[in-house]
């Protein structure tokens, strides 16, 4: 033995192994990652992967067959309904496990645990985890779960789903782990019913977590009340509400009383609040509509829905058919939750758009002292509850965050947490509707089973938060829409600003009785529709709060009024329509006010493009790019001087606000730039805005990205923001205010069209693929089809069609 070289090379070898097995020296454990038998190569699914399997589990009571078709859509046939949820959980996990866990970790404020507290210079701990802990996401999920588990059917459904997910997790080993676990270096944990509840709370945050209370409180303190109402109006002229204007509403069941102190302590209170809230994407919204048989060629109703959400890979959605003796449903499911969410069964179809109500309000809390142990409420010191949030951080000690809970809810913002760099010494408790007990899973379950309008209307009563416009169409000819949710009954502008939290007078006084929620059943006009616009006109007896883009709804209703003899193909054209109705209204104001005499030749060239534009945000449209830039530039010219008077967070006024003001009033006072001695006119502003826009547009032109799709640059990003696992630069038109609401990283996340003919004819597509594995050929299968505005025929399989050529693999699940 030669001891010296032996030791030397043993040390070298060991060091090599340690370096390659860890992130100590290299950015990643390359040996572990690249070992062909363990690492990422194992995620390279063979192109001819055989998904056939015969599995046995003790949790099953009967037989379940799953047929995977050529798009990897599973068609589940179960002898027992609850077995179907077990298999659904198993299948979701098999194709989407990492995503399911990542989303629920995000919801629970646990991203620091897997990503570390700072990623790319951005604080995951502050912006994500503490934000969600302090909003009480897990608190809300626990309350929901308790309510859901009171219902034996929901409990059984969740238990079986969870067992199915865990059965799959139990089958994993180092090699078969989803690739993201390998790259990020952690292991999946057991699924629980709480995780399903957390996922649904994540959707509640996304859809019912928006408010502008701090920004509007600041604005109220800066602007006169007349100016404030002008730039933050509560209704739009161009509104075509979900329930048509002129509808007579019954006398309200709840008479709300404005607090006696409102003028001094609320409307007139001047305050400055530096808090910066993390908000859900402002573009979260959707389109849905259903036409009755009298407007369709087949004579059967057609239902359409496309929810606009963040576009990610793996997709939020997973397509599936679930067939049991009690129901047969097809549609988009949520990996993380049992049931079919947006889809149809043998009798009817259902879809959703966001109701956009403001159900998140803030109250200023007066604590006795810094210990936060007691707060002043209704003339006495009341004891605080504390919830200690333990945030685990990758490679660092735990972070403890003690959150005070009041009668209103958790004190989200205080000295230690304010979302911004400036100091805040006040306490703001959040009252969020999603903290209340409710069992939304029951709604999806009942909808999957629904046979008629009555079943549907009973089902949607379980939807409390997030409020949705629940759309329905049935083979018997019925169509309906309910603006459904459990919504607080508010007095005018209640909850637009931070409210006093020292007594109960500013609390929500009750919930709007469910039957008073705006709705329409089989209206004479032959269609129902919603696109996040206000559901009602100003005669509705309650104040709604919230932000409501009016334009998509306006255009959809115009089109549906015109259309007759409608076919599913007509609906495909409509659902992917790039017509910009906002531009139809706004462009004349621009064209009429640009002072041509002071434009140079280059500017004139772009003016001509704007003038000649066909108002369509098509892929190759140059006019769309010029228009959007000109409009954005005009908003900056008009609002910037007033809004920049303060460093405080303010809310940018809606585009409808500016447009409607300048259409109505060419002397709109905000047109004047307060920083110049002269008084600017509309023409001055528009011309300056155009000249500035040309600067940006010219750069795009030089860079070869003047065409709208290139300029907008739609992408579908991997959930962990890994560009290599994303689909970038998609050639798709549309965008804001077009039905085809495809924005840069946001848009129609599932397009569905269901014609309720005796043999259902349905089409659908989502920008993703059934497999969440970037190494699978099914990872992004649908993205190009989606971008091109094309659809897949959705196949409602019968089990007798087992030998159909579309069935590629069969998985059997049996009782052990």
């Amino acid at each position, binding site marked *: *033995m*030669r001891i010296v*070289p*032996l030791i030397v*090379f*043993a040390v*070298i*070898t060991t060091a*090599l*192994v340690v370096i*390659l*097995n860890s992130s100590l020296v290299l950015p*990643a454990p*390359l*040996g*572990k*990652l*690249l*070992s*062909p*038998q*363990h*690492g*990422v*190569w*194992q*995620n*390279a*699914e*063979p*192109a*001819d992967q055989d998904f056939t399997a015969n599995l046995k589990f003790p949790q099953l009571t009967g037989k379940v067959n799953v047929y995977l078709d050529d798009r990897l859509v599973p068609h589940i046939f179960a002898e027992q309904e609850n077995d179907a949820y077990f298999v659904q959980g198993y299948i979701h996990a098999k194709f989407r496990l990492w995503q399911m866990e990542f989303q629920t970790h995000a919801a629970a404020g646990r991203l620091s645990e897997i990503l570390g507290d700072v990623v790319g210079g951005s604080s995951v701990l502050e912006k994500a985890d503490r934000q969600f802990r302090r909003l009480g996401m897990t608190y809300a999920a626990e309350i929901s779960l308790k309510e859901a588990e009171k219902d034996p059917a929901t409990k059984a459904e969740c238990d079986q789903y969870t067992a199915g997910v865990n059965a799959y997790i139990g089958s994993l080993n*180092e090699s078969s782990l989803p*690739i993201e676990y390998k*790259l990020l270096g952690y292991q999946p944990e057991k699924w629980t019913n709480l995780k399903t509840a957390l996922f649904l709370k994540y959707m509640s945050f996304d859809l019912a977590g928006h408010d502008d209370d701090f920004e509007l409180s600041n604005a109220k303190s800066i602007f006169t009340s007349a100016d404030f109402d002008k730039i933050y109006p509560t209704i739009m002229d161009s509104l075509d509400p979900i329930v048509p204007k002129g509808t007579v509403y019954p006398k309200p069941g709840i008479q709300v009383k404005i607090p006696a102190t409102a003028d001094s302590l609320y409307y007139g209170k001047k305050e400055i609040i530096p808090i910066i809230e993390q908000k859900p994407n402002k573009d979260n919204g959707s389109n849905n509509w259903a036409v009755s048989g009298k407007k369709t060629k087949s004579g059967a109703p057609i239902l359409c829905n496309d929810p606009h959400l963040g576009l990610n890979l793996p997709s939020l959605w997973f397509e599936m058919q679930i067939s049991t003796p009690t129901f047969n449903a097809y549609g988009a499911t949520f990996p993380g939750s049992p049931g079919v969410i947006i889809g149809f069964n043998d009798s009817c179809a259902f879809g959703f758009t966001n109701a956009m109500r403001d159900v998140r309000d803030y109250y200023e809390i007066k604590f006795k002292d810094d210990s936060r142990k007691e707060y002043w409420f209704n003339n006495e010191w009341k004891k605080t509850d504390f919830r200690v949030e333990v945030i685990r951080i990758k490679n660092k000690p735990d972070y403890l965050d003690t959150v005070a809970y009041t009668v209103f809810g958790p004190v989200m913002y205080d000295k230690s947490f304010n979302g911004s760099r400036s100091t805040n010494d006040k306490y703001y408790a959040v009252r969020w509707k999603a903290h209340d007990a409710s069992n939304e899973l029951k709604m999806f379950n009942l909808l999957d089973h629904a046979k008629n309008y009555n079943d549907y209307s009973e089902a949607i009563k379980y939807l409390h938060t997030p409020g949705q416009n629940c759309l329905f169409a049935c083979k018997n000819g019925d169509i309906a829409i309910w603006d459904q949710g459990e919504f607080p009954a508010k007095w005018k502008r209640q909850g637009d600003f931070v409210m006093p939290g020292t007594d109960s007078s500013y609390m929500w006084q009750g919930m709007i009785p469910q039957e008073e929620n705006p709705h329409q059943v089989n209206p004479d006009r032959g269609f129902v529709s919603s696109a996040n616009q206000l559901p009602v006109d100003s005669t509705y007896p309650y104040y709604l709060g919230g932000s409501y883009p009016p334009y998509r709804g306006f255009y959809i209703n115009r089109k549906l009024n015109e259309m007759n003899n409608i076919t599913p193909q007509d609906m495909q054209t409509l659902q992917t329509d790039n017509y910009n109705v906002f531009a139809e209204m706004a462009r004349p104001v621009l064209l009429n006010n640009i002072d041509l005499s002071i434009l140079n030749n280059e500017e004139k060239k772009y003016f001509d493009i704007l003038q000649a534009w066909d108002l369509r945000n098509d892929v190759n449209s140059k006019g769309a790019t010029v228009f959007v830039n000109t409009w954005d530039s005009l908003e900056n010219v008009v609002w910037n001087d007033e809004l920049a008077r303060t460093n405080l967070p303010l809310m940018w006024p809606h585009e409808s606000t500016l447009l409607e003001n300048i259409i109505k009033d060419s002397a709109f006072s905000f047109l004047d730039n307060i920083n110049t001695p002269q008084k600017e006119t509309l023409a001055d502003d528009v011309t300056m805005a155009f000249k500035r826009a040309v600067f940006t547009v010219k750069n795009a032109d030089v860079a070869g990205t003047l065409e709208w799709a290139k300029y907008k640059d739609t992408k579908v990003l991997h959930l962990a923001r*890994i*560009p*290599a*696992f994303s689909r970038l630069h998609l050639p798709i038109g549309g965008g804001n205010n077009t039905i085809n609401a495809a924005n840069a990283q946001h848009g129609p996340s599932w397009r569905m069209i269901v014609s309720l003919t005796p043999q259902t004819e349905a089409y659908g597509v989502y920008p993703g693929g059934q497999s969440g594995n*970037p*190494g*699978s*050929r099914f*990872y992004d299968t649908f993205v190009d089809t989606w971008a091109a505005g094309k659809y897949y025929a959705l196949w409602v399989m019968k089990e007798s069609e087992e030998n159909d050529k579309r069935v590629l693999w069969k998985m059997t699940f049996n009782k052990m």
Partner: protein
Amino acid sequence: MKFIVSLILIILLSFCACLYLPWWSIAIVAFIVTALIPQGAGKSFLAGFIALFLLWGGLSYWISVNNHHLLAHRVSLLILKMDNPYLLMLVTSLIGALVAGFAALTGSFLRNRKQPASRVL
């Protein structure tokens, strides 16, 4: 002959070990094989190096071809910052080769007192 036998043994045993053990079991295999089949240090190193170069290169190539290089395109972009599946296979092969080479070299010193000192690569 010893070289070929060592090479083949390292390939086969590494493959089998990795079915059950962590990836670095290739180091143990290479170490044991060269300890049991004494050769010069240089030859031992080469046996380990070439064995794993071939094994990991071959495996990753075979996996990737069957996958139409889908994953390799994406992962090479992620890890190597360039879209080149073959470079990813090369890096994979070299990592296995280096670890096994040094382990084999170490193994050779356990028993090769009587071997003429051959130069370490």
